[in-house]
């Protein structure tokens, strides 16, 4: 089985700051892979390279067997991306947001309704409400709905649960588990260790480096601290 994402020795620097340093890992098809690390570990930079928004200085990467540099146009039709602090358009209603994103991906809500239905039903009661007036958890659900609207093969979620309460966090991870059943590969980043436990595998990141790729042990936090201490 092909890998959903392969990352080979990727490096990226901004001026004198080394954002990513020789990062390598693979994400298998149909798994939830977690990038765990504090702010400033390089998670967002890595997301932007994999979603074709940034070019790596060194190394190569492919997503869904397409090169992130060479095949970026085709790749953009196959991935879903939810950036950190993503707030959609606060002045548009829930419905307008969904329709807009469906439209730019050249699909309609009905086409892939099966996929987004479980999430959509939860926000449907608020579909006339402006996105800016939704609670944090609802906003995240709407954003996820918009990122899934074109049935992507690989889903990228950059810190989807930052600033979201525990209940909404739990719900979001349950939704991701459902999506995994639909054979969508997921790369998600988080600063919460307990969320790492819900991933099939995790990469522990700190200061632009991947310290370890593993199945999350039960004592993930202790384990991470130990790794940080060694690094």
């Amino acid at each position: 089985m092909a890998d959903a994402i392969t990352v080979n020795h990727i490096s990226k620097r901004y001026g004198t700051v080394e954002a990513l340093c020789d990062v390598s890992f693979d994400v298998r098809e149909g798994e939830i892979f977690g990038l765990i690390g504090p702010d400033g570990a390089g998670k967002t930079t890595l997301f932007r390279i994999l979603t074709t928004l940034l070019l790596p200085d060194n190394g190569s990467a492919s997503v869904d067997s397409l090169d992130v540099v060479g095949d970026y146009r085709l790749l953009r039709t196959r991935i879903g991306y939810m950036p950190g602090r993503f707030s959609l358009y606060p002045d548009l209603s829930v419905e307008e947001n969904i329709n807009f994103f469906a439209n730019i991906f050249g699909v309609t809500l009905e086409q892939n309704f099966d996929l987004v239905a479980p999430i959509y039903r939860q926000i449907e009661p608020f579909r006339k409400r402006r996105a800016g007036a939704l609670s944090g958890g609802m906003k995240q659900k709407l954003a996820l709905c918009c990122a899934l609207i074109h049935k992507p093969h690989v889903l990228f979620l950059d810190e989807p649960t930052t600033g979201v309460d525990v209940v909404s966090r739990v719900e979001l991870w349950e939704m991701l588990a459902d999506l995994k059943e639909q054979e969508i590969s997921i790369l998600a980043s988080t600063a919460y260790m307990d969320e790492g436990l819900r991933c099939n595998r995790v990469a522990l990141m700190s200061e632009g480096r991947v310290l370890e790729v593993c199945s999350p042990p039960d004592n993930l936090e202790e384990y991470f601290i130990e790794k940080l201490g060694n690094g």
Partner: protein
Amino acid sequence: MSSFIRKEMLHILRDRRTLLVVLVIPLMLIMLFGFTVSTDVNNIKVMVCAPHRSYAVAEAVNRMTASRYFEYKGFVDAGDIDQSLRTGKAAAVVVFADDYDVSGKYQLLLDGADVNTARTSQAYLQSVLSTGNVAVKQSGIQTHMLFNPQMKSSFNFVPGIMGMIFLLICAMMTSISIVKEKETGTMEVLLVSPVKPIYIIVSKMIPYLLLSFIDLVIILVLAYFVLDVPLAGGVGNVVLVSVLYLVLALALGMMVSNVVESQVAALLISAMVMIMPVIFFSGLLFPTENIPWALRWISYVVPPRWYIDAMRKLMIEGVDLKGVLLEVGVLLAETVVLMTAAVKKFNDRLE
């Protein structure tokens, strides 16, 4: 594409306050400049000093009295002229020569403390005095203001305000709306989607083009019906050149949004880099001829200068499109260059 434009329209329509400002500003500026801030001079206090109160002199005085621009204050002795001007009893004194009836010679003494008023008074007086029988017969020089005989300042301001407002709305508003998407992270999602960058650009432009078009109509209606600006060169031509200028301003906005990352920066750059040169170099406040040569070269590059020139010619001089070929040519060239650069520079990546 259509949904994209629809979305932009919704953004504009839902931001009621900004929408109102955009539609009311041109109205206010036109009214403000048209009525209050006017360099027109009315009721100039004029005194006359004449050794012989001949028929010709009396006729000249009559013409002055008849004009609403002058307030005739009576005769003054040669020795008191200085005093009258000093005390403000008169702003101008006409001294007729002994042989005025024959030679048509006269002298104007003006209160130069207010240069603008003095200059305008001079022009008015010359114009009034040069139309008399004597003057027509004998005076060497005759001055006629063509196209704007009453020298109405609104004729000068309307094109200037148009040059400024369209730059303001098109350039500033588009750059802010694009940068806003960068700030909220929605731009990342748009870029990652299969939408081509050119579509993002075009759909950002169309709503603002429409909005500025509404402003154009408001301004032209006000200019024509309220301020009596003649629109002599034909409404069609004025609109045509204006739309070209609108597109140019949109392209400028795109360029700004390419280089800045925050809404505040977009606002500052739009204001400083675009509005300031309009005021200084476009002839809105100062004639471009008075600018030192180094700066004048800069004024040759500033688009509003050409647009305002073209508008003056079309609206007031009444030439047709052939008369503004140079201006239109420069604007067209600049539009093509800026648009190409904006599209090229509009990255489909984040760097």
